[in-house]
């Protein structure tokens, strides 16, 4: 029991210290991450943090796996903001808010939604979606000019 507590504390400490909430697993074409006003070229294995914005080019696509095993992927010409991500790997409680500004998004919800439905929300310019599980896609066309 004592070891379990120590292990749990270590896992928790590691999670909050690293502050990566997800990881880019695959990508093709032009993909970058906007973080703290900087534009970083994305690569497989790169960590994703809360407040990151993922952007794909006209030929781009990207897939990200999050700590709770939520899977998100973007098609071309897409912009997705990770507004909020928190996950407790012991209780599986958490909150995941993301905003699709434009483009296409595919979602496979993970452990936090299994634990508490609608702990994951996806916003678009005109709606909020509460996710009760598990797989769906969303598309936001660029506004006509």
């Amino acid at each position, binding site marked *: 029991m004592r070891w379990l507590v120590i292990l749990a504390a270590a896992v928790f400490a590691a999670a909050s210290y690293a502050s990566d909430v997800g*990881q880019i*697993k695959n990508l*093709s074409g032009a993909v970058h991450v906007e973080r703290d006003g900087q534009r970083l070229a994305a690569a497989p294995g790169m960590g994703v943090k809360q407040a990151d914005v993922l952007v794909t080019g006209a030929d781009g696509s990207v897939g990200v796996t999050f700590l709770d095993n939520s*899977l998100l992927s973007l098609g071309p010409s897409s912009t997705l903001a990770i507004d909020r991500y928190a996950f407790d790997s012991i209780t599986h409680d958490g909150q995941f808010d993301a905003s699709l500004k434009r483009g296409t998004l595919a979602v496979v919800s993970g452990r936090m939604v299994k634990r508490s439905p609608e702990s994951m929300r996806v916003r678009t310019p005109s709606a909020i979606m509460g996710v009760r599980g598990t*797989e769906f896609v969303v598309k936001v066309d660029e506004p006509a000019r």
Partner: protein
Amino acid sequence: MVAVLAIIALIVVAHQLHPPAPPAPAPVTAAAAPVDELVVVLPSADGHTGTVVVDSQGTRTVLNQPYASNRIGRDAGTMRLSLQELRSAFGAALSSIPARPASFLLYFITGTDQLTEESRGELDRMLEELRRRPAPDILVIGHTDRVGSEPDNDRLSLQRAERVRASFLAQGIAPERIQASGRGEREPIVQTADGVDEPKNRRVEINVR
């Protein structure tokens, strides 16, 4: 690659089970208007379709049928999207979904860090599967049965985990991507009295994502 095949297989199977509904007579005005926002719920790998609740401009729409779609803010109700429409609108996003997280169990010869013959084959299949993941994260947890002392079993469980980790390293997977730990005899799959030589408990769990 696996994910892509799985999705294609899913689409093919779903197609056979539920042939797309014949196209509804398109309203004259809607046909020309571009879809601004669209959400579609999909059946998952286990065939179960989940639920998405869409709140827009004070209206709540619940999507819970396979391929149920809602044109957000345009139509109040839901409509079944055809697979052609799904593929043409979402093909690239769908084929970029990362490989599903997976778990494996490998079993050991009693008192050793040697895999059983069956598990050696399973390890090879697992290594093959890992090659298809460009950036895998691997958690390896070793366990023992209840023969021997607890401290000895702690050591043996870690040794088993490290042994499996070494197989991944030999495949060129970066060391920082693989964590190995041992849990001794604390977490048996089959509950037994102390001293019992239960093969199902002599194992290493591998979680990949």
